[in-house]
């Protein structure tokens, strides 16, 4: 887990502008809540508390509903992400081809479990349910690059390429 300090980092002025632009793009429509949160997530790679408050205020939607939505959908993260985002595919095809063994080795090396970020903010680890390139399975995605036909020690070697 990231340190409490990291979580409390205030969002910068630039981010505030970005968030305002996103909300305006969706015409402050409450029905666009998910689309707005997705855009913010894409921009900042997480949903800081201040951002949620801004959305709540501008959309006139209570914070409780925003939190309900932000925790219901898996695309959203309420904690900051590390420099490199690892998504290990745990789809059925990857599972039967040995993805759990790959995941375990990655957990051991990074010291974190899915949904967590290491204290150095180097890696964030997540599992996904299917990247849809089953021919490459077991496969993972690091910073949107697909790395396929993994075996535990190949995955371990690949992680060494990231700073």
């Amino acid at each position, binding site marked *: 887990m990231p340190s409490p300090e990291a979580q409390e980092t205030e969002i910068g002025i630039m981010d505030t502008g970005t968030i305002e632009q996103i909300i305006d793009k969706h015409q402050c429509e409450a029905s666009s*809540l998910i689309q707005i949160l997705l855009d913010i997530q894409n921009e900042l790679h997480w949903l800081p508390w201040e951002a949620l408050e801004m959305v709540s205020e501008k959309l006139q939607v209570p914070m409780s509903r925003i939190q309900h939505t932000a925790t219901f959908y898996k695309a959203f993260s309420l904690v900051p992400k590390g420099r490199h985002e690892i998504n290990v595919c745990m789809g059925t*095809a990857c599972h*039967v081809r040995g993805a*759990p063994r790959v995941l*375990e080795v990655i957990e051991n090396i990074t010291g974190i479990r899915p949904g967590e970020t290491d204290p150095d903010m180097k890696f964030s680890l997540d599992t996904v349910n299917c*990247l849809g390139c089953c021919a490459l399975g077991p496969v993972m995605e690091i910073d949107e690059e697909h790395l396929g036909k993994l075996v535990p020690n190949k995955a371990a070697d690949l992680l060494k390429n990231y700073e």
Partner: protein
Amino acid sequence: MINSPAELEHLRQEILSRRDPDKARISVCAGAGCLATGAGKVIAAFDAELEKQGLKGEVHVKSTGCPGFCERGPVVVIDPEETCYLQVTPKDVPAIVSKTIKEKKVIDRLLYADATTKEKVVRESDIPFYKHQERNIIGNNIKIDPKCIDDYLALGGYSALAKVLFQMTSGQVVEEVKKSKLRGRGGGGFPTGIKWEAARNAPGDAKYVIVNADEGDPGAFMDRAVLEGNPHSILEGLIIGAYAIGAHEGYVYVRQEYPLALENVSIAIRQAEEYGILGSNILGSGFDFTVTVHRGAGAFVCGEETALLLSLEGRPGEPRSRPPYPATKGLWGKPTNINNVETWANVPLIINKGADWFTQFGTERSKGTKIFSLVGKIKNTGLVEVPMGVTLRDIIYKIGDGIPGGKKFKAVQTGGPAGGCIPEEHLDIAVDFDELTKAGAMMGSGGMIVMDEDTCMVDVARYFLNFLAQESCGKCSPCREGVKQMHRILADITEGRGKEGDIELLEDLAMSTGSASLCALGRSAPNPVLSTIRHFRHEYEAHIREKRCPSFSCKELLSYYIDPEACGACLLCLKRCTSEAISGGRDQIHVIDQAKCNKCGTCFDICPARYGAVMRLSAEPVPGPIPEELRIVVKRKEAKKEAQREAT
């Protein structure tokens, strides 16, 4: 802006007249699967090489949708000869341009080679993987640049729409779809025409039509391939459906995990608007219709239609009970018709070629073709489109080419997380909605995961229940609690804590969860449990009674051991061990420290076949390490000499 069917035809002829069918064209699959194996670099290499060899502008390079043969990607097809090259890399590109494009010579090493006869196959359609398919829908993918509406028009695109708008009443359209007996491809298998009729007859001025592209089944990606590869075919189906039920607004609900599908469908909508195929007064017919793309945010349950509707309204997707069905009370409480991607893609074909053409494919109660994603322990991973009624055996062995690595087939899982596993003895059933259900599985959206002797069926059930427990929205308690408890029992069994009575308890829980849950997620959650108990009860019993995993898959019941007699001290496993659990050295027998071993299996996979020294043990005690002083390996050659000396 196109203002009449005549103008549409005129434009089509103009596009065709600009294209010389005899001129060389290069199509490279740029679907998500091939892009992951480097198709982007191949396309860039073609552009550079054509320029270098002075063919820029002469030969067109097209980035197309997925033709399905993901196993051998990146796939390149060169027309007009239809030469198909597989697993192409950028360094193959100069030769392809100079030999195949310029000299019209085929490069043998890039062709498909039959595994047994070693015979080379030149044309795409002659490759066995494709030859046994009926590719009504996915077959166009390799002919189309999905970002170019003219490509779709060149193949006769939007002619079904023109026919509907100018020659048919909305009632006739519904009748034609009913007559085709098309059933929903998303899993439910509900007759599409009847669904349309209900929405058409529902009172109300505002109505909606929706494309459900929230394809969440792990191991299934056919909807993505169609949406990425031929987005206009979905839009055409959608506009026809809107006309039939009287809707003027539509949505495409796409999961955000499919960025390329999102991009391509958004471009397609923009292009269709520019051509007057979407918007007001479509093709001059007076019919108005607009489409908006909505991104899903990662919730499996949103594939369920009532959950999807709430998600579209910007809320958490928690299903509600039906009735009322969306056909009468859907988005914002208005009549709404939701169909799956593949269902919509069938509509223009049915309108253009007629219901009678469509019903020639398939079985009595399941008509047409179905796209399956054939994945797992199978030689040819990919998307296959077959007429309903083909046997599982044909799909797995004729198209999929069987199981890799000489392993034995164990089961095929169909229908996604809520589907079931089908064993060898049922492989000859005809694949359609009803037969799969009878076998304890289901059609689902078309995922087909092949499992071999190394796959533990209890672990598979545990895997799916874990998935469903995570994806259960938590609204109704039978699903929230029942799925969780079933998962807990399965986890106990796979981790060696199973006890007598667990199987019966699972069956009991499955019954109550299945009958009392609110939506399809909970109601079908028992399927993976019940189907594996039904066909693989002996595996459950081995785990529970002997604490043994017959497939050597459940890590808690498994140990790795190096047979000192067989170890060649080659250092391979020692170097690759991911937990530094192996000790030894050159000429020194390797030994696994059981306390350190994380059971990743690398040593077992990597030990050369000539030694075969690494053993998997389940429910057997691991022999203690041999004493240090006996760990010296006498090299085989010397041992052989020794033996010879003794013999003489």
